[in-house]
């Protein structure tokens, strides 16, 4: 019994090691560099020396950055919840329904567009000379073109659109593993459709929703290209500020401390999501196929 236990540990360590070791190896220098750079007192990218937490103090007390962090977190939660609500039924239908190959193609479609091309596409759709305005004008729902681009709503829409596929695919992969017999069993026990959904499907698909939400949240909170290009002046998401410090102002120490703050927030939420998704796991392990 003892020998079996020991070899089980080795087994798990062996399974984990390629991934963990390679990530540690590859990321250790970048993260160490990031941490070290964030502790320099200077405001530039060269001639750096000394230790100071001055940039962290600024990152955590300056209202511009705190407000941006709060706002970005809120936006990310909105996008995450939105994509979860829309993505779950779509993922379910993609796993169970017909035309699966086509659905997968359409789901992956937004992911294939390079960011800048994606932006150009949205400009063509939402701009004052764009598709949406032409349609609304011809239907007489508007009498002159309205600016749909450049605002918080647009940024959230485009971010949601870009990251929705991740949620759908995540749900789809999990639902595909749920034995259809369970749903039929529930139906045969006179459970109506909503009860089946609520009591059987959602709990079983929960890990998928959680995984998808984690990915969407992390991607949204660190997005900077889309908000920069489609947000106009009013939307200042956190990663855009990081970009400004690292690439434009070349204040690497401050940029690094902002990055680490962002990393901490994102990982905290990832952990919260994991805890939220964990409770029914024990049971579902026994019920699923």
């Amino acid at each position, binding site marked *: 019994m003892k020998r079996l236990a020991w070899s089980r540990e080795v087994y798990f360590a062996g399974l984990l090691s390629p991934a963990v070791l390679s990530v540690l190896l590859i990321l250790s220098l970048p993260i160490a560099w990031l941490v070290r750079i964030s502790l320099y007192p200077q405001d530039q990218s*060269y*001639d750096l020396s000394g230790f100071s937490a001055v940039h962290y103090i600024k990152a955590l007390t300056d209202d511009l950055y705190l407000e941006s962090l709060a706002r970005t977190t809120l936006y990310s939660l909105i996008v995450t919840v939105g994509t979860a609500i829309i993505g779950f039924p779509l993922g379910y239908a993609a796993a169970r329904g017909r035309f699966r190959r086509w659905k997968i193609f359409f789901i992956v479609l937004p992911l294939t567009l390079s960011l800048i091309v994606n932006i*150009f596409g949205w*400009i063509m759709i939402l701009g004052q*000379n764009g598709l949406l305005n032409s349609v609304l004008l011809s239907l007489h729902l508007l009498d002159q073109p309205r600016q749909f681009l450049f605002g918080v709503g647009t940024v959230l829409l485009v971010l949601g659109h870009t990251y929705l596929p991740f949620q759908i695919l995540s749900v789809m992969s999990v639902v595909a593993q749920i034995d259809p017999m369970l749903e039929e069993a529930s139906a045969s026990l006179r459970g109506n459709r909503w009860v089946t959904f609520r009591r059987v499907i959602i709990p079983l698909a929960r890990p998928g929703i959680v995984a998808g939400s984690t990915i969407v949240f992390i991607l949204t909170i660190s997005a900077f290209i889309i908000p920069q*290009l489609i947000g*106009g*002046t009013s939307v200042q998401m956190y990663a855009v500020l990081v970009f400004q410090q690292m690439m434009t102002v070349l204040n690497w120490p401050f940029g690094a401390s902002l990055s680490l703050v962002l990393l901490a927030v994102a990982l905290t939420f990832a952990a919260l999501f994991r805890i939220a998704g964990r409770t029914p796991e024990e049971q579902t392990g026994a019920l699923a196929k």
Partner: protein
Amino acid sequence: MSLSRFGICATALCALALAHAPARAQQKEFEGTKLVVNGFGGNLDDVLVESVSKPLKEQYGITVEIVPGSVASAYAKAMTSRANPAFDVLVTDDITLRSAAKAGLIEEVSAADVPNMAQLYSNFMPLAGYGLPFFASVCALAYNTEHVKTPLHALSDLARPDLKGRVGIFNLESIGGVVSLISLAEANGGSIENVEPGFAKFKEIKPNLATATSAPAEMYNLLQRGEIWASWFWSGRVNALIDQGVPLALAVPKEHLRGNLDFASLVKGTKSRGAALKLMHQITSAQTSLAIARSVYFGPTNKTVTLPPEIEKRVLPYGAEMIASMPPVDWDTVVAKRSGWIERWNREMR
């Protein structure tokens, strides 16, 4: 094609290649050397390939590798590869040039190293041999003549009520945006030290803004589609739009034109110094200047260049007179103050 046909073609090609081989037998000075330089992308890179890479290959046997990306990412790459430089020649703009020089990334060259240096406009070389300018560009007013009936004369005209929601400008992440701040400040009683009047003007323009972007590609697209009708944009790009048939007009603002330069700098520690100097000589030549002006309408930095009449009026800046009349920008102060300006912008313009 069938196998035998393929075979014949292959043999013919081989014979052709062998026939040419003796002609190339003579050794070129830098045969086999590879140079890495950062580029811009698109048409400008095509010009560099034609005017720089090809002649260098033919004359000296140098292979030039142009790495796509932004000036900022190239700077970051150069900063992190000092022991084994990622670039042999670094292309920089006004701001990164100064940062690179301060960081000890680049080396000064002399007219003895790069003979064409003597042909460059002297007020285009603020850091002497640290960076050799190979094109100049300006931002000017651009407006759509189909929709904007009264011409624009000044940057502050962008605040005109008839332009509501149809104005696009650069934000302070773009070097063009920085220039607009300085122009507005200096024209309204301020200076580079006191940019208050500049920000006041921005606030006036704000209600008209569709967007304040940092990406020229976006501004280009918006102007092209008529989404924005008035802008502060690189004159070369506006000319490219005009060539495509977009009804735009360029106007020199009352607040004066201020030039931006792009430089070629020798990277410290490069393993192919001799070849790199040849590249710098070629990139600052009259031939390259002319090709750039023809292709993307940027201003030549080589004094000996005479532009043909059909593009003379369209290229800005051009001519000793115009260049002498452009107020200089104290880029060192810009580098020091920019982060404060950007924060101010973030607070005020949201």
